[in-house]
Structure formats: structure tokens, C-alpha cells
């Protein structure tokens, strides 16, 4: 009995930590659906966001300024020159595996490049595109 209880606890804790791009997309999609009935994430809209030129920031007018025209590629920070691992899950399995980290970078990068916080819908679309792009 104790073993079963321990095993059960272990499984619960694994589930709580095992964050996948699908789970992270679902968090944002649920949030978006609460604001906008019938919302479904779209990889296409995510790609449009990724390619959009906001041109608010001279050095970083778009996501592509650091992440290159293809999220499958290794990027380069537009100011410091530091190498940036690919955004796409297909070429970087570590992406979208930590909800807090994802939220931190949406927070920073949306503010800096888009000029405002991104909406849950935009985040769901973006994660969907990055999970599906090949």
C-alpha cells in the first residue's frame, strides 16, 4: 500500500514537472479561449507574428533580427553577437520545456520587440508554429 502511495506521488510529481510544448501551448490556449470563445491556436498566425516587422527597436525590429528567417537555424543576438539556439522544437528539443522560462522570454522579448505584452492567443499561436515547423 505504501509502495503504491509512493509510486502515485512520484507519478504526480513527474507530471507536474514534465512540461512539453503541447502542455505549454495548452496553458496559453486555455487562457486565450477564456477571453475569446472558440479560440484555436494557429501555426500560420504564429508564423506571421514571427515574421512581422514591428520596427520599434532599431537593432531588433523583428523576432527574425536575432532568430534569423528560419526558426530552425541557430540565431545570433543582434547586439551582443552571442549565439542563440534554434527556436523550433524540431532542431532544439529543449525549447518550450519550462513554462516559467517561456513566460519570462515572452515577457522580455514582446516588450522589447513588439512594444507591449503579447496576448495569450499570440503566445499559443507562436508556440504552435515553433512546435510544428519543419
Amino acid at each position: 500500500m505504501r509502495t503504491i502511495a509512493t509510486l502515485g506521488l512520484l507519478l504526480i510529481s513527474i507530471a507536474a514537472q514534465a512540461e512539453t510544448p503541447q502542455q505549454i501551448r495548452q496553458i496559453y490556449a486555455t487562457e486565450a479561449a477564456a477571453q475569446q470563445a472558440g479560440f484555436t491556436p494557429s501555426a500560420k498566425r504564429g508564423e506571421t507574428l514571427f515574421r512581422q516587422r514591428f520596427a520599434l527597436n532599431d537593432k531588433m525590429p523583428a523576432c527574425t533580427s536575432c532568430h534569423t528567417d528560419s526558426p530552425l537555424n541557430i540565431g545570433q543576438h543582434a547586439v551582443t553577437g552571442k549565439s542563440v539556439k534554434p527556436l523550433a522544437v524540431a532542431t532544439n528539443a529543449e525549447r518550450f520545456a519550462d513554462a516559467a522560462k517561456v513566460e519570462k522570454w515572452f515577457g522580455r522579448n514582446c516588450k522589447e520587440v513588439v512594444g507591449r505584452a503579447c496576448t495569450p492567443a499570440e503566445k499559443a499561436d507562436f508556440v504552435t508554429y515553433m512546435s510544428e515547423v519543419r
Partner: protein
Amino acid sequence: MKRLALIALLGCALPAFADRMPLPANTPASFKNECGSCHFAYPPALLAAKDWQRTMAGLKDHFGTEATVDAKTGLEIAAFLERNAGNPDKLGTAGEPPRITQTARFVRKHREVSAKTWRDPRIKSAANCEACHRGAANGSFSEHEITMPSGLR
């Protein structure tokens, strides 16, 4: 046995050389995560303690970027930087806001690098240590371990 002792002594002395600056084993993960995402996780010895204090106090506008961290993380990183900071007498002043690249030591060590080299897209910025110091991630800044991007010298 004597030779062994000598090698051991040498091993201890090596990290004291200024071009060996590996991050200490007890470097907090927060330092690498917060400070090593947008730029190289610079060895704390490259700035004096008071300059790290000013840097940490100014994260709201960190060279044009909002780089604030939560209070607990900020304290942890600041303590780590100050504990391992460099000798101000050897580094020289770093300007305002403090820049590693403005310290007399950095300027002297890089005086042979031409403006054209700094502008190369593969280097892009003096912040990009690893473009030439290929062993930088392991703490090696030795001039014997410099490999310039092809075509540059």
C-alpha cells in the same frame, strides 16, 4: 614525489594567471541563466566589486535592455559577483555605466584588434568573447587559444 608536488603546486598556481578565469564551481545557476542568455556569462574577475554593484543596480536599463531579475535572484547574483570580483587596481576604471570593455586592462589586451575586425558580423560586438576566445566557456582567455573567424587576423 617531488615532481608530483611541483605539478600540484603548478596546478594551484595556474588559475591565478589572469588569462585563466573559469567560473567558480559554486557559481549559482541563476548567474548563468540570467546573465548568460543574451551575452557571454562574463567572469566576475573582469570588473571590480563597485562596478558590479552599479551594474546590478541599473538592470532596469541594462545597455538599452530591461534585464531586471526578482529580488532574491538579484541578491544571489550580486553576492556572487562581488565575492569573485577583480582587483580594481589592475582593471582600471570602467566608465559609467561600467563596461568591461572600457577597463584599461581590456583595452590594453585588445589593442591589436582593428576596428574592422570588431565590426565583422561574426564578431559583431566586443561582448562576444567566444567569437575569438574559443575556450572562453571553459574560462580560457589565453592568447594561445585565440582563433579569429576565418579571413581575420
